[in-house]
């Protein structure tokens, strides 16, 4: 290291901050946290896992279409777009990204560079969460588009109808992944074992309990997204092997009793589902931001020193 030391390091430095009002300065700082977090997502290795899941999903759709030619596209859409993706892929994407909101910076010891800036801690967390939501929503929209392309390309369903359904599914999936991110972001501040807790949560609460016709499913994200999907989209499909018969596949698999309650009056309306999910997202985010603002981030002295 033989670089020459330049003359006067700070003599000519203008006090740029002194001239800048704190509000705009804070906005710049927050925007920088947002951009930095997005760039971290791009440079991480998580996207490889996500790409793997996308390939798996699309690959399975192609495999089913290639081996079961008479399988109705709508049923294929339901199985992948509304069973496999929301149940397995969305919680995993959210867990992978939301668990790193705080823990990545802690593990890599770069949190210091954020904490010593003129940014309130709650705003710092919020900016990082917002960036995480951006990344996950983009990924989910991409995954949904690819899955729907795999399901409907070359089928008898018109492009317009397929595109509209894909758009609806993408919106529902985005809402679900946002809710999962807010929830997992909060849990990551409560436990260091977020990956284990998150997987257990996804398996038991969202996977097992949400599929039971009991009121405990009211406490799951997937229940509300299913209701939104059911109330906004049709899942009446021809039965495989018997094209003359139709079945309401969603009502059957999601344990929605449409025989005795055709309008599903015992279940929340779409508007209520939306409000519940958005309020839950807001509550988790606010709580997490408050927790973060009161948290200490101790950096241990490196061993060698």
């Amino acid at each position: 290291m033989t670089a020459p030391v330049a003359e006067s390091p700070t003599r000519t430095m203008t006090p740029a901050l002194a001239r800048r009002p704190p509000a705009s300065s804070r906005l710049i700082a927050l925007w920088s946290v947002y951009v930095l977090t997005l760039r971290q997502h791009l440079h991480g290795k998580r996207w490889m896992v996500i790409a793997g899941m996308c390939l798996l999903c699309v690959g399975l759709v192609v495999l089913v279409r290639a081996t079961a030619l008479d399988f109705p596209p709508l049923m294929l859409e339901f199985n992948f777009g509304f069973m496999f993706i929301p149940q397995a892929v969305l919680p995993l994407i959210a867990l992978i990204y939301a668990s790193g909101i705080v823990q990545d910076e802690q593990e890599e010891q770069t949190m210091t560079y954020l904490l010593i800036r003129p940014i309130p801690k709650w705003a710092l967390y919020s900016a990082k969460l917002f960036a995480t939501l951006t990344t996950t929503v983009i990924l989910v929209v991409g995954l949904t588009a690819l899955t729907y392309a795999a399901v409907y390309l070359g089928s008898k369903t018109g492009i317009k109808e397929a595109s509209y359904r894909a758009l609806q599914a993408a919106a529902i999936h985005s809402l679900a992944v946002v809710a999962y991110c807010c929830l997992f972001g909060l849990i990551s501040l409560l436990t260091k074992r977020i990956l284990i807790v998150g997987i257990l949560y996804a398996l038991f609460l969202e996977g097992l309990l949400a599929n039971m016709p009991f009121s405990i499913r009211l406490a799951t994200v997937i229940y509300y997204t299913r209701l939104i999907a059911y109330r906004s989209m049709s899942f009446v499909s021809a039965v495989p092997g018997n094209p003359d018969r139709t079945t309401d596949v969603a009502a059957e698999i999601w344990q929605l009793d449409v025989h005795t309650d055709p309008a599903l009056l015992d279940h929340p309306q779409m508007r209520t589902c939306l409000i519940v999910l958005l309020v839950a997202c807001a509550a988790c985010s606010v709580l997490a931001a408050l927790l973060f603002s009161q948290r200490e981030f101790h950096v241990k002295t490196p061993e060698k020193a």
Partner: protein
Amino acid sequence: MTPVPQSLAAQSPTAPSPTPQSVAAPRSIVEFHGVSKWYGNVIGINKLTLRVPVGVTGLLGPNGAGKSTFLQLATGQLYASQGKIRVLGQPVWNNSAINRQIGLCPEQDAFYEWMTGWDFVHTSARLAGLSRAAARDATERTLDAVGMTQYQGRAVRGYSKGMRQRTKLAQSLVHDPQVLFLDEPLTGTDPVARHDLMTIIQRLGSEGKSVLVSSHVLHEVQTLTPNIILLNHGRLVAEGNVRDIRDLIDEHPHHIVLICDEYRRLAGRILSWDDVEGVRVLAKEKGLMVETHKPDAFYSRLPQLSLEDGLAIKEVYSDDDSLESVFKYLVNK
């Protein structure tokens, strides 16, 4: 060297909090009033009361003395279990506005490794709230100031230790703070980088910045400033002028570790120096442990040795046995 009780008695810990006017020109940059910090059952800082004056001050202490805890408390990263902390007259915990006036060069060798040096410093400037144009200007000036302009386009992951320390220093300076906290900024650097970094820190002081430099090596700090604060086991051992403890230091042999690929040739060269009393080969680490009673003279010759003899000394660090023994002496006095 002022022993602790007298020194603290001379100050006025109960002085009223500075008004906004006095914040602009405070008498002290950091004030700790009866501050303790516990990590569970471990004490990091123990009932510490002190004032860090304006100017360059050295924060000295062996490993585990509480220097990093002190700096993390002073920069609002940690919350004091007990007592009050003020920086520039303002409380620091959850006071993000104070960070506009503060720069921190942390001890940990952590970066966003995928960034280039320029990108890292520019991002730091933007995180500090500088506009795009101001951040660009400040980044260029600061990288130039720390002598990193020619390496600014390279990824941080490929930097040497010295380059990384310079880059860390640059990110702490980029928003032109009034107060700088430098946590072991010279640790692990080669002699030339060490010399350059010292020059930069001295210059910052001469330009009116208040700098608090932590180190476990007295000879690093005394080159930068005569004002030192000595910590040990989380307590204030002494504070004042460094000259007063020089004699104590010189009573004890000083151990310096040099890491160099050509450590055997380096040993031959160093043994010819009168002030070197012994050299131990550390073959496993590819280095030497040098024992000397005149560390100042030894340190001052190192950059030249690197440049003239072509011996690329990769790393220099001091075993702080000598300082530890002085601390023991001071504590038991």
